[in-house]
């Protein structure tokens, strides 16, 4: 097991390094040059050279990368071009908000997904199964932002029982805070709930077809026990892997959801950076979001290895 963990950690470090290289070089995709693009309209070419030197853009690219990554490792992401504020402060204030939203979305979708998936597997091809499967397919096809629009329309505009924008920190007022994240979490978690549900259903059907389940039933084990101690445990392994990757995807989805519901998380920060061409902020948010994404996936891998001994010895 320790070998398995070590392998995963080494690959985690390598991928994080790769991410930093990709993010760093990305700014060079900008047609022309970022400085030209940002200041070209306002300043003469003499001043542009000055700014280029100020940003260190006139030095060899490897040197630039090393200096930049050195600062990033000390959690110094520089300052926003637009506001002039330090980016790191902003990220530390926003990351908990996104994690809170993702946590709520993830929790409800796992509870719903697993429960409905298991219920559907009880009577395959029955009425409940049909309903559950159809909802699952629909949930996967609905874009986040459309679902969000419909939810706001129904719960905020027509029924007027839930707020449609804004965020209240959890420790300020736990009840209001939960209510404020209700619609965003619902919209964000639907895809995940649908995916988890489909996986839970098919994993249960797979497991229930195995000989050891028939043996358990044949020797008179009660159905409830067949489910709880034989089937669920084994069916949960693939579901857990999926939960890991889907949790990571919540971070991507939060980009859109936070923008719609005006939630001051890191996704909103990233989208605002894109729209205002604030490249240092975009680089920083990409590093943080992709970094968290990889960490979540690694944790899921580790959990997988812990649950299923076969994985470790590959």
């Amino acid at each position: 097991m320790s070998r398995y963990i070590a392998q995963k950690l080494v690959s985690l470090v390598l991928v994080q390094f790769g991410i930093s290289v990709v993010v760093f070089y990305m700014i060079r995709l900008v047609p022309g040059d970022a400085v030209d693009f940002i200041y070209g309209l306002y300043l003469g070419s003499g001043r542009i050279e000055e700014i280029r030197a100020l940003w260190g853009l006139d030095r060899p690219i490897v040197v630039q990368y090393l200096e930049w990554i050195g600062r990033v490792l000390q959690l110094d992401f520089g300052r926003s071009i637009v506001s002039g504020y330090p980016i790191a402060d902003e990220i530390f204030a926003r990351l908990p908000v996104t994690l809170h939203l993702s946590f709520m979305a993830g929790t409800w979708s796992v509870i719903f997904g697993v429960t409905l998936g298991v219920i559907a597997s009880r009577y395959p091809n029955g009425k409940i199964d049909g309903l559950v499967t159809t909802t699952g397919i629909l949930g996967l096809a609905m874009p986040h932002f459309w679902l969000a629009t419909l939810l706001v329309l129904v719960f905020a505009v027509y029924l007027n029982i839930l707020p449609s924008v804004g965020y209240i920190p959890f420790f300020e007022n736990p009840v209001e805070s939960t209510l404020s994240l209700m619609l965003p979490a619902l919209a964000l978690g639907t895809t995940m709930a649908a995916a988890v549900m489909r996986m839970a259903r098919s994993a249960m059907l797979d497991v229930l077809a195995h000989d050891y389940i028939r043996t358990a039933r044949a020797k008179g084990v009660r159905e409830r026990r067949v489910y709880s101690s034989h089937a669920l445990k084994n069916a949960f392994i693939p579901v857990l892997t999926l939960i890991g990757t889907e949790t990571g995807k919540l971070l991507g989805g939060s980009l859109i959801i936070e923008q719609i519901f005006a939630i001051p998380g890191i996704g909103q920060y990233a989208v605002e950076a894109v729209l205002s061409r604030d490249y240092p902020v975009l680089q920083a948010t990409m590093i943080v979001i992709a970094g968290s994404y990889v960490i979540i996936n690694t944790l899921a891998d580790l959990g997988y290895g812990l649950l299923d001994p076969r994985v470790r010895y590959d």
Partner: protein
Amino acid sequence: MAESINTTDARQPVAPRREGPGRAWRRFARHKPALVGAAVILVYLLAALLADFLAPYDPLDMGAGSRLTGPDAAHWFGTDEYGRDVLSRVIYGARIAFVVGVLSASGAAVVGMLIGVLGGYFGGLLDRGVTMLIDLIFAFPTILLAIAVAAFLTGGGLPPAVPVIIALCVVQAPHFARVARGATIAIKAQPFVEAAQVLGGSHPRIIRSHIAPNVVAPLLVQFALSFSYAILAESSLSFLGVGHPPPAPSWGAMLTGAYGYMERAPWAAFFPGMAITLLILGFNILGDGLRDFFDPTRR
């Protein structure tokens, strides 16, 4: 030679034995949902191709009706904040969706297949590089990477659709590469490839006539999935303001506009979203059907 190969190993993604088109169609048609999916896509495709004849109004015409009127006989889907006909805009939106979907999925398929087949066939250092590249791109949440690539590319005088298409190619190509690589490795181990090598077939020839035809089937499933993802991502990007700029009738951009006044005119937000959802639904169930169709264990 490839035609004569029939494997019983379910895990290997090897192309099915050649069968006549009639039989293949009957086998495909047994999967009813897939047929429905294909029919839905066909309707959208027709709408995209025949938009000029089908759309009752010009999608950009601000005088098509009075502003924010609800659905009625003249405007089935109502009108938006500028008095433009929502139905006409939804129909023209299919054109944008298909252009972006076809170009980005094809681009990703070509690039991904090339990388994946070469990596899987030659192995060694090249394969290491390919796997690393795939893993690296998978390390980013797709929508974040797509937004960033599109944002970094915009503003260079490229036509509006190009940055989005390139961005979607970048995030989709690794999926094709992974599928192609896996299939190539499985096929490479088959005796007929070894036979071709012993007979003195050159690498390009073996790849072209033995590997490539057998890799296409699993990639077809991926193509359907990528197409549906492209439509979702394009509308997400446009919704956030990094895709097609207004007044282009992109479904995502229509939703952004309508979000601001949806209390007064919910139809302007409802129908574009409905259009996206139905088309993605069509591709997803077609993809499921294709997967069953190509799966040798399901016969």
